[in-house]
């Protein structure tokens, strides 16, 4: 009976119900997408770094897992000392450069030979390896997103590059240029931001890392297979707080709209509330009826919100194929829980107001 009452009430004002449902849907979608975008980007970046194929990464002292944030580059000479360590098979210096034209990218300045031995080489979809100083390698996703073809001239860092090849994605960056050219361009002659190290056997990773810490005290040494677990929003200063603030904002939208919806509902149904009281309904019945109605509205909104999340993701991925948005059941459930708590909370004051209404006054309300 309660179910029928709630369903009929929701259907009675379809537009108001729809607005309430949409507000909750937007709330849920915002939470799911914001979290999905950040964790998607982080996971995707981490996978790309893991995918390089090296065993160890050396960074300057106190460097972040987020490579673009790394401090001042190291002298390239360090590479020679690394190659002398036992069990080290090869060492590749890489100079990283942020590029923010047409999205945010990290450009890797590499020495093709050493990078090949460390990573096992690129898979060339089209074109050939770096030969000239202006050769640029682009991964397939970036090529698709930016409409780049082999043979094109592509402007990057105020320099005209010749697109030598489209390579398969997953080797750290999406754009690769010769190390020397990049060093000259950014004024970092004989410098490298990171060194990638390949051991003779993966089992030696620990030993080699220990030895590096010994020879180069203070430098940051990380095994590449740890990147996935290290790349979380809590590791970026302020990012988690930002995500939390966005979630709070989304919850506020849902809460306010639910509040307004239920508040107008209670005003509109003043006389009905008087009638229920005349039939012997107590405060708890009135409160339960209204909170359940708000919760029902919210559940509809949650389903709409999940649908909206997938639709928005599909739309974004169609427009920006390099974007990664990770929608997880865990966060859908969490967003649903947050929305539900918000809906009950938003409806609690109107429900309390309704339960406190004077029955006689309510019955004479027009």
């Amino acid at each position, binding site marked *: 009976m309660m179910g029928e*009452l709630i369903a*009929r009430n929701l259907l009675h004002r379809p537009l108001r119900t729809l607005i309430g449902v949409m507000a909750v849907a937007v709330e849920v979608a915002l939470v799911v997408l914001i979290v999905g975008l950040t964790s998607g980007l982080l996971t995707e970046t981490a996978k790309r770094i893991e995918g390089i194929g090296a065993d160890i990464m050396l960074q300057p002292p106190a460097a972040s897992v987020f490579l673009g944030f790394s401090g001042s580059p190291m002298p390239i000479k360090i590479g020679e000392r690394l190659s002398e360590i036992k069990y080290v098979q090869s060492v590749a210096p890489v100079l990283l450069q942020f590029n923010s034209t047409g999205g945010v990218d990290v450009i890797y300045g590499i020495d093709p030979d050493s990078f090949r031995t460390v990573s096992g080489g690129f898979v060339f979809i089209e074109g050939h390896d770096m030969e000239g100083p202006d050769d640029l390698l682009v991964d397939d996703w970036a090529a698709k997103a930016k409409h780049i073809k082999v043979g094109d001239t592509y402007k990057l860092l105020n320099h005209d590059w010749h697109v030598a090849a489209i390579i398969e994605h997953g080797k750290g960056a999406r754009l690769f240029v010769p190390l020397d050219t990049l060093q000259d361009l950014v004024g970092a002659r004989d410098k490298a931001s990171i060194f990638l190290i390949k051991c003779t056997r993966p089992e030696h990773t620990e030993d080699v890392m220990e030895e590096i810490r010994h020879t180069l005290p203070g430098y940051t040494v990380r095994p590449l297979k740890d990147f996935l677990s290290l790349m979380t929003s809590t590791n970026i200063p302020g990012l988690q707080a930002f995500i939390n603030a966005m979630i709070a904002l989304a919850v506020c939208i849902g809460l306010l709209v639910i509040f307004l919806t239920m508040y107008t509902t209670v005003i509109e149904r003043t006389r009905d509330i*008087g009638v229920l*009281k*005349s*039939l*012997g309904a107590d405060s708890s019945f009135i409160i339960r009826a209204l909170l359940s109605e708000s919760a029902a509205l919210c559940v509809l909104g949650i389903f709409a919100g999940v649908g909206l999340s997938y639709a928005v993701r599909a739309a974004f991925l169609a427009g920006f194929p390099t974007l990664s948005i990770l929608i997880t059941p865990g966060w859908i459930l969490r967003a649903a829980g947050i929305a539900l708590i918000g809906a009950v909370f938003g409806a609690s004051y109107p429900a309390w107001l309704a339960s406190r209404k004077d029955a*006689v006054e309510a*019955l004479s309300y027009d």
Partner: protein
Amino acid sequence: MGIAATITAPAEGPFFQGKKSVEPILKTENLWKLYRAGKVDVPALRGVNFAVQPGESVAVMGPSGCGKSSLLYVIGGLAQASRGKVFVDGNDLTSLSDAARTRLRRHKIGFVFQRFNLLPTLTAKGNIAIAQFIHGDGFDPHRFDVVTQLLGLAGRMHHKPSELSGGEQQRVAIARAIINEPKILLADEPTGNLDSKNSEVVLQMLRQLNKDLGQTIVMITHNPEATTYFDRVVHMRDGIIVDGVPAD
């Protein structure tokens, strides 16, 4: 039964005097109701003494503003008395908490209003069923059938209030009020919004409820003809009962 009673107990006199030996189902003692309007208290009831026997049907008449509705709300437990006592089926309402008054109303009182007051989103059936749901015994199909048959509503159960005539709406409201077998049915001008033909139907049905099912009824009315359907008429003026002195 009335005849048998007068024959076997002639010493007790006419029918309703004879019933006085029974505990009244409803009784007020020096009942006051004050409304606060700004800084002054407006008395709506000023010492009402009133009793209704089980199975009795009573019409309450009086000029507008004399306190009829106030009396009904207080004895139905919807409003609180300011002074005095109200006994419903032996329970003193004035000594009960809000929650206890609500419970008593749920189990012993049925209300019918001038404006029908059906829930607009529910069907006729839903309006009756929700009273059973609030009452707590769940849906009783037998009682439901008896009541809807009695009120001639059998074919109209799946319509919403907006699809029913005024007379039908008021019959649904009466069905809702009596579905849980209340001790007392309280009606506040139930024919006030009806044309004379529908009024007559509703009054007939109230009388039938009283005669056939023994339903105790207290009804407020402005219509002198309506009183002919009732056992007794009580007149009010200025917040008190002025029995025997016609007030209108």
